[in-house]
């Protein structure tokens, strides 16, 4: 850098040991600033170690060549510096040549976002081969590591080994090695849905006069052959889920009015799960669900409220739950159309389907018949190759019905 070369010409008048002392002093003073704070020449002068600009140049040059400082130019083309940890500086000193050094510097400046291999080439103005060799060398020495970014899954990204890729790059807890962990997402979806269902509905046995909450009979037992997500960090099963105090309170049998289905016969005589009375305020909020999930220790890494919000959003978009506005801007959730979810007489016998997202009996009329699902329906005309007269699907459908 020009600054460094000019400074070296002035070094003749100042003894080296003095520079050494000043450098040490300055480095220790600026380390009081948080890491990553960029300081201008004026800021460094203000520190008060060096009073002459020329001497300051020498000091900076000393620190920079020892890799204790990082430099950059600000928007007004003025130089700025920030300090680097000693152990980081040591790593720099291991690097044998200038090209690798500048590559390492570029990767460091990318921070926890990481940088694409090709961007390193453009920024360092190097040949592809050189970059390839440099990256290989740095990787072998354990200075940098490759990772996959969720945003650019096809690009080779590099980051300092000492850093963890940012959440934006890794995609948060739903991604493992840059790939969406669908098993985890689906598993969490079921758990969150169950949690909301238990707290926003009650179980009606129908016909008999006994009743209670959907979860009244306790958490369902684990079954043999229960499917676990194929990937992900799911630990344990819903068996281990403990209900919170609030939930336990709702479940006390005395507090729930006993419920029966009208004797003269409604459309559903059997047991069903129904919504709560009006003005109910104990619908679970995202925060409560998060607490519940974290108490139950469902995942290895704790999930934040915004992670759970991702899941509730997803359920909401799928039309399985609905937001309900509660007091003080809180938003609770309730399950939609609860009575369509087939419930069994004994909630302990609930199968996976009921536990999680049930296959609703409600279906769209146009999708349940041959024309609704026919792939060649566009070409179907009377008298043509595909026609109602020759339709095999209808023949089968009518036979089954």
């Amino acid at each position, binding site marked *: 850098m020009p600054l460094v070369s000019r400074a070296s010409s002035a070094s003749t008048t100042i003894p080296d040991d003095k520079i050494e002392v000043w450098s040490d002093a300055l480095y220790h003073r600026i380390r009081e600033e948080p890491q990553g704070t960029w300081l201008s020449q004026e800021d460094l002068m203000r520190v008060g170690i060096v009073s002459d600009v020329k001497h300051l140049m020498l000091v900076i040059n000393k620190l920079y060549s020892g890799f204790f400082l990082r430099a950059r130019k600000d928007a007004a083309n003025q130089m700025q510096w920030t300090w680097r940890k000693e152990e980081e500086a040591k790593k720099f000193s291991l690097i044998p040549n200038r090209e690798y050094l500048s590559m390492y510097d570029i990767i460091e400046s990318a921070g926890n976002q990481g940088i694409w291999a090709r961007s390193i080439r453009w920024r360092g103005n190097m040949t592809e081969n050189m970059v390839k060799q440099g990256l290989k060398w740095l990787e072998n020495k354990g200075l940098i590591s490759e990772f996959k970014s969720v945003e650019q899954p096809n690009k080779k990204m590099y980051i300092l080994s000492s850093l963890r890729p940012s959440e934006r790059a890794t995609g948060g807890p739903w991604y493992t090695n840059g790939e969406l962990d669908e098993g985890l997402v689906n598993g969490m979806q079921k758990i969150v849905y169950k949690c909301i269902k238990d707290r926003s509905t009650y179980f009606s046995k129908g016909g008999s006069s006994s009743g209670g909450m959907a979860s009244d009979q306790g958490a369902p037992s684990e079954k043999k052959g229960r499917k676990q997500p194929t990937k992900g960090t799911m630990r344990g099963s819903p068996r281990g889920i403990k209900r919170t105090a609030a939930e336990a309170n709702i479940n006390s049998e005395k507090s729930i009015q006993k419920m029966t289905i009208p004797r003269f016969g409604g459309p559903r005589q059997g047991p069903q799960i129904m919504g709560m009375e009006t003005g109910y305020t104990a619908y679970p909020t995202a925060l409560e669900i998060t607490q519940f999930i974290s108490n139950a220790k469902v995942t290895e890494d704790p999930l934040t409220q915004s992670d759970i919000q991702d899941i509730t959003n997803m359920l909401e978009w799928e039309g399985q739950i609905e937001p309900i506005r509660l007091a003080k801007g809180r938003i609770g959730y309730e399950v*939609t159309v609860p009575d369509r979810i087939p419930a069994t007489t004994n909630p302990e016998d609930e199968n996976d389907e009921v536990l999680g997202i049930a296959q609703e009996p409600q279906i769209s009329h146009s*999708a349940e018949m041959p024309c609704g699902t026919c792939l060649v329906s566009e070409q179907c005309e*009377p008298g043509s190759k595909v026609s109602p007269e020759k339709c095999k699907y209808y023949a089968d459908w009518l036979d089954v019905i």
Partner: protein
Amino acid sequence: MGSASKTPNYQELCAKFVRDIHGELPSRIFEYLCNYGASSVERIGANLSMSHKERNSSIAILYQLNLLYYWADPDTRSPTIYYEANHEAAYNLIRKGKIVNVVAQEYGNEAGRFLETLATFGHARIRDLAKTFIREDCTPNGGLHVHEKSNGNGDVLMENGYDGDEDPHLEEESIGEKFNSMVADLLCADVLELCSINTFKSPRKLRASIEKQVIKSKYNGVKPKGSKGQEQFLGYVREELEEVRNQPRVLKEQLLRRLGNARRDKFENKKTKTENGTGVTSYLTWEEIDPSAVVRINYFKTNVLLRNTALVKHASNNLGYVKGQVYAVALRIMEKNIERCHPDPYFHMVAPNELGKTIRDLNLPPVTTLEIVSELPEDLDVSMGIGRAPKNMVNKRRAERVRPNPRKERLPYIDKREIEESSGEDVDDDEYQDDQDIDLPDFDARGDDNGKVNLNGDSDVKFVPRRVGLDSKVYEDPRLQNTREHLLGLSEASQHYIRHSGEEEGGEWVVDFAPLISKIQKFEMDLYIKDKFSRRGVRLVNILRQFGKLDEKALASKALMLKKDVSTLLNDMMVNGLAEIQEVPKDNNRQANRTIFLWFFDDDRARAQLLSKQYKIMTRLQQVLDVERHKNREILELYNRSDVRGREEEMLHPNTIKKYGVFQKRSRALLTQMMRLDEVISIFRDY
């Protein structure tokens, strides 16, 4: 019904119905009119190569059933008469059974059968109808039996007498009386309407001619210019249109005038109960009706009845049977004041201060809890279906909230909180300011006299609701309280089936039909997408509904789905006309890698697509039914022989009977499917 629904598929379907019910010749004319628009008799005859006789009798059939409109220019001497197809009437042919059912449920089986007869005729004189109907019914097991003549309380039960104890020889006079009473009932309920001189005229041309007439009579043939002149002109037109709209109800108004007092004292006066006993009220005794009046079914009103049935079904599915029943009663009381589901596109002109509103949003008088309780079937146990929770988890004040105005529509793509923050005013008042409640004892901004709140800490708030217009004894009646609870449940549900609009007489309730129907439409659309493209499809569509246009990457990250799954699904949906794509090139070179592809979902377009598809499916079902009939034509011919009819088992071979059974089963399956599709079509188009 908008012009968008008159797609080729729809026209084909209508023509198919006409063919199926009224035969080849009328359907050919109907089809021709669908394809070529308004045509004169000569042109129809010439183009379809029909003889005069065939042509005229076919047109007469179509005219009788109002399957076509006519138009003759009144300003021309000896004008040519043009005919055009009436698609709505053709489509209604398939709904006949449903309409008969719903009317039978509400007004008794007799009314249902009467409507069936009338539907077969299209339109007819009351005198002729009476003759046909009474003759049919004077059989021992016929329907119009006077089960119990006016007794001390004046109660008359109308029942389909199958108990055999009845005297088969009934006095014709009393039957006539019953018949007239039933017709009067139906007329007052708007299910029947009077045919006027304008009934069969093309509404489009009629409207144009009214406007022309106004220009001629009020402005000497020069159309007024300027906004003021235009406004005045529209005012005149509105008056004229109002008159045309009221013509079919002249007879009803005459009747109501005569029976005014009877209707006013409805709780004390004579009641006619129908056999289903669900509290259909009709307060009309026998009155002379003009026997020469020509009546027909008012399909717009029957659509209102069908809409009520659909809403009740939806509410029952969502919230349970009891709430559904309470809702049914509320809707039934309300329906008296609802003329039709949508405003008439030709004859309903809203006043300038009502612009932007539809007839559905115009003020309907609310129903009160007391009215509902008095009409509830007695054997309905309203204490059922309420999921009681511990008191400290229930916020009564929130539940009892009165909303005098309809809920505001949400703006798409915008987070309400953002607006609230930026404008500083409450955008969605009911949603966000609702719930300071627990801490606020002053729920009396609305001038409450009786409500009291005891604050014992944050959690235990006792709420005593207002009792406007009721003494406490009536109010504390558990039946009224439970009914209120059900009504509040209906209003709190996310669909907002009903709105708690006031506190008089135990609570006033109104239904905001437009937003409710659009929610049900969205539900049906989601259901279709779910069945066809899985829940993930619904997820994507709802994300697009909320955020507008998004590219695949953003969609995948929001939906927590793999990008390749997202593109497969979206492509599938695009092929089916649901999702759509917009290309935004980054530069002038329209290369694919320099272009952003944004996905979006347009509800209206998707709905039009879906409807058109449904029409096509219905046509195919009808065609498959034809194929089945053709396959079994020999058996059907056998069954139609007059010597076989009634003695099938002795005359036919068991195999033939078995085959006929299979055919019947199949045709029933096809027709049932058509009926189900019609339900979806109604939700998307008619309600």
